[in-house]
């Protein structure tokens, strides 16, 4: 098998299939909640935590740019972002879109402040800090695949377990409240799932692919089905399939970055689905 497609391609393929599946699965609910841009916001909100993580690891004398310490910092920072978004949407009349845009810009701006502080103070090897947690599919490592595997199992099983309360919450928050699933808890759960997918995805496949994978397969699936559960499964399958085909194309042809190819493939699938479903509709 390794002769046929190569070790790196095999790893990337497995990682992309798994990540495509779980992000498509979670993405369906994020999509129905109209929160597709949450991942973009959270990804930007990682910057201050990333730099604080870097400072902490430098002062503790750890290996500089120990990527798991940086990732932890990034995760905490984005989690704080989730809390602020929740606070703004629950406590004020500001919309969800406003909350995520505010968190995105302010956190990122504060991150830049820290970055410009660090760049001249010269505490260590801060060069390339921003790039450090931005991954790409083609650089997939075995440990990445393991992490993706664990995260996928975690997220997908959370979705399976909570599919009914999540559906109820998205469709009719009051209903879910009455059924014993507090709105803010469900909202937090969904944000948390998006957060985990975003942070891991950021490190392993890159920002743009994360945003696309949480959104486009879900939108495509929505065209084909009206049932939430089959939509989330279909979305997972679409995500997985596009990721897999994208990886193979990028392995067979030169100069094609895997992430970008996957995004474009997903968009083509969406376009085709629009055309086919509309033709089907007008024939009825």
């Amino acid at each position, binding site marked *: 098998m390794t002769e046929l497609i190569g070790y790196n391609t095999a790893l990337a393929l497995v990682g992309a299939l798994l990540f495509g599946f779980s992000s498509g699965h979670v993405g369906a609910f994020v999509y129905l909640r109209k929160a597709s841009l949450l991942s973009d916001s959270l990804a930007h909100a990682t910057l201050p935590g990333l730099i604080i993580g870097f400072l902490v690891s430098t002062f503790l004398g750890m290996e500089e740019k120990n990527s798991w310490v940086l990732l932890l910092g990034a995760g905490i920072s984005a989690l704080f972002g989730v809390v602020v978004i929740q606070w703004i949407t629950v406590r004020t009349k500001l919309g969800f879109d406003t909350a995520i845009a505010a968190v995105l810009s302010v956190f990122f701006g504060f991150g830049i402040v820290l970055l410009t502080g660090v760049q001249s103070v*010269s505490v260590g090897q801060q060069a390339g800090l921003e790039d450090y947690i931005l991954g790409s599919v083609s650089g997939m490592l075995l440990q990445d695949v393991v992490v993706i595997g664990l995260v996928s199992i975690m997220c997908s099983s959370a979705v399976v377990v909570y599919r009914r309360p999540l559906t109820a919450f998205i469709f009719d928050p009051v209903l879910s409240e009455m059924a014993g699933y507090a709105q803010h808890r469900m909202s937090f759960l969904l944000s948390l799932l998006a957060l985990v997918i975003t942070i891991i995805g950021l490190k392993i496949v890159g920002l743009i692919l994360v945003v696309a994978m949480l959104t486009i397969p879900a939108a495509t699936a929505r065209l084909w089905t009206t049932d939430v559960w089959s939509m989330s499964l279909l979305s997972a399958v679409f995500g997985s399939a596009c990721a897999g085909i994208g990886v193979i194309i990028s*392995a067979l042809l030169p100069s094609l970055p895997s992430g970008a190819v996957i995004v474009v493939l997903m968009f083509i699938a969406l376009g085709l689905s629009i055309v086919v479903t509309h033709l089907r509709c007008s024939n009825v």
Partner: protein
Amino acid sequence: MNINRRRFVGLSAAAIAAPHMAFAGQSLNIVCTVGMLADTAKQIAPSNITIRALMGPGTDPHAFRQTRSDVVALTKADLIIRHGLYLEAQMEDLFAKLGKRKSILSAGEAIPNQHLLPYDDASAQYDPHVWMDPTLWIHVADAIATELSSKLPKNSAEIAENHARFVANLLRLKDYGHDILASVPKQARVLLTAHDAFRYFGSAYDFDVMGVKGISTTSEAGLYRIEELVDLIIEGQIKAVFVESSQSDRNIRALIEGTAARGHDLKLGGQLFSDAMGPAGTYEGTYVGMIDHNLTTIARALGVDAPKRGMNDRLNV
């Protein structure tokens, strides 16, 4: 008491002399952009001249964001030394404006064009990473020395002396590199890093240089490229690959895993300084130390018994 008095007299003399010296134009406020230039200027300039680097030694020039104090420093500088060749892309406009009033030395552009490597045949842009070749850096040192002595004619003797010493160091560095790398066979002369920052090193020491991804920071490697490199490593029996101080090491580690799966033992040769120098105050935080580190690391990774602590026995191990 006596000492105090002498000190008092000395201080007064200095106080009277200081403005006088400034008037004579023998004080010069120099601002350099990148650490490599600041270090070079420090080596060459007379000891009483203050030199400020905008970017700390560990800062990647591609990612630098200038703040107000940097702009103030530039507007107050008597001489600005920048690298040029589009290295400080984010400051091009600023330099264009400052150029009207300030003397700006584009030290990297002092290197004759025939020594520069264009990005591709059609492009008028050159690869800016010239510091990787100490021989080319001599042109930079020359340009700085010439500029300094024209600004500080009274110190020209000291400058010439410093300059000669620094150039001698560069030549030593060049020879040291050739010495330790001489025993590396032709087919093993491959330098594989995360991005294309080592082309001048390649042309100076006859290495094939390969980067996983292109120059642009927005670009991303494809799987085809990774598989291609894995094949190349195995065919060429390449022993080591390198990570860079300012780049993520993921792609490089993917290569190590990819070749390991096919039974090839590819070592991580160590970390090289590509766009930024080592921490301030260390030997690696100087130009010579940075290149020494790179040469020594590469040689040792390729199986040469180079001195562990480098040319000057000062590398951190």
